[in-house]
């Protein structure tokens, strides 16, 4: 049977067909839908892990105990999971083990553009790179075979355009889930120097064998395809870039790699010998190019193409053929400029009240990653730094110690509930232990919002939406040793301002928990009858409600607000901001 699946859904289907027993992941665009769509396969145990390192370690454990296991993450998640990855490479597997890393060239939804292929090389594990949904499923299944056959974790590299494109997939019957017997083997599974020294030899040998077999057996190990057409131009490519090449250069000879690490050197040499000009087309780093040049072959790559962003058929056509690119029938030069449409905090978003308070307080804000990072943009513009998940608290502590505490009188760190559980809590322990004076705001919206609403240890539900124990943030902070803990509703923006000002004055670590559920989840939905109404007589058109930029509240011709009841979530923030009592509850039912 054929189905049209997202690349990510096809990975999940592949896991089901391959008899995977366990999936443990932390969400991250563009990888999130893999684990979300695992949920439909009831025989697979799946979970949201607290972070990528934890997810990877759970998968390593399941693999040692004999089950096929999977962990999925976005590219920056591999940084977090790198520690178990590098040593899992030494111990190898019992049940097959796959790490999926989803790269985001062009940064559709990421803070950097790193290239995960470097991890396969550095950790000495094989990596496959699919170019459409069918290959997502096929390559994942192959990855499990290779993992068990060569006793190695395998990485699968995805790409936003592969993860988030739908294409046709032929479904097959699932294999049974098999749990292999576990035999204690300290030489293989306990990595102390004495054992690891021996394992390292095995790792290097494995990579040599893989490189040879990948050349020799392109159909059942390497998954490469060779199309010999013109002798003038030969392209080596893989993954999403292959699709652009295939569109742009119908006459070129193409070597499309399936397993992109280790490289099938013999195959590459033989392909190179068949063409006059060899060009490597790969987004981001010159990964293949550097390796192929190191083999002593002459080729071009980044001298023709950029190190940044996504490629396109157009870019390849321009670089390699004299052919003109298609032009739009709508001449763009004479059109007016279309104003940008940046993402905004939703109507009813609990982060808005808190950020309005931070913006009025004019404090320095060390930020973190989540929907609240939008607080860095106008109209709030209340963020000074944002690096990676969990960093907000560490950075504030750094501000504190760099200034002997002076900065802590006017610096606030903000972090979401999911991010706090991911890697904020270890930072908070550090700050308390090292006697910081920082003020931390935990934005507890009861969900992992940014990545599309995944449950986390604070929400009381598991990935299958069954009830689960929930961490009590205030108890957790208290047990760490935080003495000043305040809980408030961020819709009361004035109160936020007062409380944060008080906490900034204290010279110990303070935690403010700003608690209100995300407006897009069921518990965050306001009541229709509580939606805002405008009393035009009381309104002085002062503009303070307009300036907060709620998508439900816009300025009318008389400069007074107009409420869009289809969008208003009845949070009451605008009512709290109005100094004239002109905004009140009372939006009619339905």
């Amino acid at each position, binding site marked *: 049977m054929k189905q049209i699946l997202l690349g990510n859904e096809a990975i999940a289907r592949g896991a089901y067909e391959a008899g995977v027993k366990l999936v443990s992941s932390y969400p991250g665009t*563009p990888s999130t839908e893999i684990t979300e769509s695992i949920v439909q396969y009831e025989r697979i145990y799946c979970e949201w892990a607290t972070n990528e390192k934890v997810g990877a370690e759970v998968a390593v454990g399941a693999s040692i105990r004999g089950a096929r296991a999977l962990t999925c993450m976005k590219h920056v998640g591999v940084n977090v999971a790198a520690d178990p990855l590098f040593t899992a490479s030494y111990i190898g597997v019992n049940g097959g083990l796959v790490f999926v890393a989803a790269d985001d060239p062009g940064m559709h939804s990421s803070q950097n553009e790193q290239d995960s292929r470097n991890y396969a090389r550095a950790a000495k594990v094989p990596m496959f790179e699919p170019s459409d949904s069918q290959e997502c499923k096929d390559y994942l299944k192959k990855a499990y075979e290779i993992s068990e056959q060569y006793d190695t974790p395998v990485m699968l590299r995805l790409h936003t355009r592969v993860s*988030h494109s739908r294409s046709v997939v032929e479904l097959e019957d699932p294999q049974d889930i098999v749990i292999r017997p576990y035999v204690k083997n300290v030489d293989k599974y306990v990595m102390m120097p004495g054992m690891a020294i021996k394992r390292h030899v095995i790792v290097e040998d494995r990579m040599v064998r893989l490189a040879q077999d990948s050349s020799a057996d392109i159909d059942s190990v390497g998954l490469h395809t060779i199309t010999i057409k013109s002798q003038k131009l030969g392209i080596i490519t893989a993954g999403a870039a292959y699709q652009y090449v*295939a569109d742009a250069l119908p006459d070129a000879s193409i070597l499309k790699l399936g397993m992109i690490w280790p490289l099938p050197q013999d195959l590459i040499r033989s392909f190179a010998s068949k063409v006059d000009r060899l060009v490597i087309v790969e987004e981001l780093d010159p990964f293949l190019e550097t390796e192929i040049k190191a083999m002593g072959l002459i080729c071009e790559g980044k001298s023709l193409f950029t190190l940044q962003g996504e490629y396109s058929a157009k870019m390849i056509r321009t670089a390699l053929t004299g052919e003109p690119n298609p032009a739009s*029938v709508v001449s763009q030069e004479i*059109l007016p400029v*279309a104003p940008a449409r940046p993402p905004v905090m939703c109507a009813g978003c609990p982060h808005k009240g808190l950020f309005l308070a931070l913006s009025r307080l004019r404090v320095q804000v060390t930020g973190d990653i989540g929907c609240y990072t939008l607080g860095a943009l106008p109209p709030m513009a209340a963020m000074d730094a944002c690096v990676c998940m969990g960093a907000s608290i560490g950075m504030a502590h750094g501000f504190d110690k760099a200034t002997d505490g002076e900065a802590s009188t006017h610096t606030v760190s903000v972090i979401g509930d999911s991010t706090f559980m991911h890697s904020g809590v270890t930072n908070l322990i550090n700050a308390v232990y090292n006697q910081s004076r920082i003020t931390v705001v935990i934005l507890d919206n009861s969900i992992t919002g940014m990545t599309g609403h995944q449950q986390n240890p604070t929400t009381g539900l598991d990935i299958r939406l069954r009830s689960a124990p929930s961490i009590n943030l205030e108890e957790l902070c208290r047990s760490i040793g935080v003495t000043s803990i305040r809980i408030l509703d961020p819709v009361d923006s004035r109160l936020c301002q007062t409380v944060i000002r008080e906490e900034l004055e204290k010279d110990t670590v303070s935690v403010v928990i700003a608690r209100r559920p995300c407006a897009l989840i069921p518990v965050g939905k306001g009541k229709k009858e509580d939606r805002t109404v405008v009393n035009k007589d009381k309104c002085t058109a002062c503009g303070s409600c307009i300036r907060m930029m709620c998508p439900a509240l816009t300025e009318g011709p008389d400069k007074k607000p107009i409420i869009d009841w289809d969008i208003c979530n009845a949070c009451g923030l605008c009512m709290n901001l109005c100094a004239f009592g002109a905004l009140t509850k009372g939006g009619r039912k339905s």
Partner: protein
Amino acid sequence: MTNHVSPPVSPAKTTDKSLESLRMNIALAGVGGQGTLVAGKLLGTVAIKLGLDVKVSEVHGMSQRGGSVITYVRMGSKVFSPIIEAGTADFCLAFEELEALRWSGLLKTSGTMIINSQKIRPLPVLMGKAQYPQEIRSVIESAADGKARIIEIDALAAALTAGSPRAVNMVMLGALSIFTDIPLDYWEESVMEVFAGKPKLIPINLQAFHFGRDLVR
């Protein structure tokens, strides 16, 4: 949590050779939350029924928060890149006027653009930092200089009449269907398959689809 269970698609039903040689690039431009993703999924279903290869490229993540979103649908006997290049869209469905302006560069000579007259003002406009351009349809029409078909419909009003503002996407697809050679039953069956998990929504969506057809006939 989003529902990532795709319903099974019944196999290709076409025996009509002219449909098998169909090649179409359709761009769906809109604002996060307007239903372009579901429309893309539905077009993918139609393509499978036609026995065609198809790719639907979506945008998730940041852009969902009220940002500009573009979905590309490419179908044909074999499709490589999931992305529609400038000047190669046979159809551009703009779910919002400003997005029509933003993505008009995709349209090819003799292509068709269908614009929903709805206006959703973006942040810079709300903040008074930018102007929402006027007369977008006629501006695009004159920039196309008679070499493409530019149509504007009130898809929101039609969707509301059908029973839900969320059915704007079906109105747009209904309008599109008139300009293609794909028989009506392929479309209707695809609507039913895409909403198979929510059977209550099928009548509203089918009606919205037909309203879309009526608007451009």
